[in-house]
């Protein structure tokens, strides 16, 4: 009886796999969607070869939608508003879309296939995003698991960005990685230097991108990236600034500090940088230099678990505890946070308890 059931299941499964394969092959080789038109913001129209994803079709026309997973439908970042065409919302999109977004025709562009003429709406600033090729000038170890990359754009190219924004690195096929993927990293350098940028990258165990950067990428190699993206940048106000970061989250804060120095922004500012022990700490000397360059800036590194041999005399405790000790009234301050979701959520709770309004807390969650 059991073997009969198993045999039937196997036969049905086999037929399903065969039919699914047949459909995929048919779509690949037999279906020709011809040329399709993508109407963007009712202002410009591009012609693309039908059959590809909306994300890829736009990318081939040099329009870059932020996407960290390279179009696998696993990051949920590549949202666009689809006004016409694009077919039904797929089950693969639903987990990434809120009720409101579904009602507002927001779709994941990596999941939408361009098989007919389609009309979309995207933020105007995405038209300014380009792909760049850069040369890896220098790779420096900052800690046991953090490196910094110095990238110089080729052919005199320049990237215009706001301090705090990020770029996406294209990771080519390497080793057993068969598809190109994109990963986002904040720019750590001055926005005034448009010919070169600096990225700070922490190794993700078994991560596709960081394994490439740590184990394959060499000085002198070429790297492709696009950008700049993001809404994490210094707001133009007179309020006191609180910056909080952990790990590689120091990157966008460092860029903001370059901006403050270069533009003569002398607002009172404190940067709380949380690490576990001394081996995780980096750029302390650079931060001391910023303290001397920016009149009202103070750098407060804190270790949550200093080792005896660290001989640490600075602040200790979780970064939330340190912030709690230093800030009494946050009601007229604004905050810039970069780090893990856990750290950011915990910091937001502390800042809110100090009277800081939520809409003045800006963050870049990993």
């Amino acid at each position, binding site marked *: 009886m059991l073997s009969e059931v198993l045999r039937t299941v196997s036969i049905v499964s086999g037929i399903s796999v065969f039919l699914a394969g047949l459909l995929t092959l048919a779509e690949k080789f037999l279906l020709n969607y011809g040329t399709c038109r993508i109407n963007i913001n009712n202002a410009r129209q591009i012609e693309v070869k039908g059959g590809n994803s909306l994300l890829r079709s736009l990318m081939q026309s040099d329009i870059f939608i932020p996407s960290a997973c390279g179009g696998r439908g*696993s990051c949920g970042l590549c949202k666009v508003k689809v006004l016409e065409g694009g077919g039904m919302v797929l089950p693969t999109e639903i987990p990434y879309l809120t009720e409101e977004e579904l009602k507002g025709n927001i779709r994941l562009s990596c999941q939408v296939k361009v098989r007919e003429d389609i009309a979309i709406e995207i933020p105007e600033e995405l038209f300014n995003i380009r792909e760049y090729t850069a040369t890896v000038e220098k790779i420096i170890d900052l800690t046991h698991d953090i490196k910094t990359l110095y990238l110089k754009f080729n052919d005199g190219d320049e990237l215009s960005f706001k301090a705090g924004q990020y770029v996406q690195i294209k990771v080519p096929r390497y080793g057993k990685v068969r598809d190109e993927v994109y990963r986002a990293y904040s720019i750590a350098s001055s926005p005034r230097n448009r010919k070169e940028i600096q990225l700070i990258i922490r190794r993700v*165990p078994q991560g596709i991108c960081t394994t490439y950067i740590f184990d394959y990428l060499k000085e002198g190699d070429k790297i492709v990236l696009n950008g700049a993206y993001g809404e994490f940048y210094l707001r133009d106000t007179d309020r006191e600034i609180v910056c909080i970061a952990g790990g590689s989250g120091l990157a966008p804060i460092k860029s903001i500090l370059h901006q403050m120095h270069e533009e003569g922004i002398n607002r009172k500012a404190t940067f709380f940088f949380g690490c576990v022990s001394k081996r995780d700490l980096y750029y302390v000397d650079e931060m001391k230099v910023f303290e001397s360059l920016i009149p009202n800036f103070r750098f407060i590194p804190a270790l949550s*678990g200093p080792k005896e041999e660290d001989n640490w005399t600075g602040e200790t405790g979780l970064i939330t505890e340190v912030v709690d000790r230093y800030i009494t009234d946050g009601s007229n301050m604004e905050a810039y946070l970069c780090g893990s979701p*856990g*750290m950011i959520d*915990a910091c937001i709770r502390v800042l809110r308890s100090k009277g800081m309004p939520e809409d003045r807390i800006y963050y870049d969650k990993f």
Partner: protein
Amino acid sequence: MKQDPILERAEKLMKPGEISSSGFLGNDNRKLVDILLDDGQTVASLNLSHEILADRMEELTEKAREYLGSPVLVDGYLEVTIQDSRGNIACPFQHMGMYPKENVHVLNVKTGESIQWTSLNIHMIREHGFYEGKGSPFRVDPLDLVRVLGIMA
């Protein structure tokens, strides 16, 4: 045992370079269905369930999250540390949602033995009974897990 198309697709996504650089199967040459069956039998033979193990892992992970990367001693014998990395990772079974790239390291200070897992491991154990293939860098062997955490049936 013959595996259905869903597991076939999941096994493909578990290969190196698909979702993570080293994949989820290590040097285990068994079919995914057989890996699931074997680990399922191991857990059942201990009078435990995937859910019980996942619950304990989740409990320790939550504790570690509160300490933002600093080690915390739980129940007097488990030192738990979490390390966050940028980004999220998808489930190879194509389950909805994304899982933060968090590595949880647990040291049993009484025995000196340690084990590590990710948020995705907890999900895959709870929802799919998948502990990863032998030789995979993130395999959470159920016998090791039970021993290091001191879980009783």
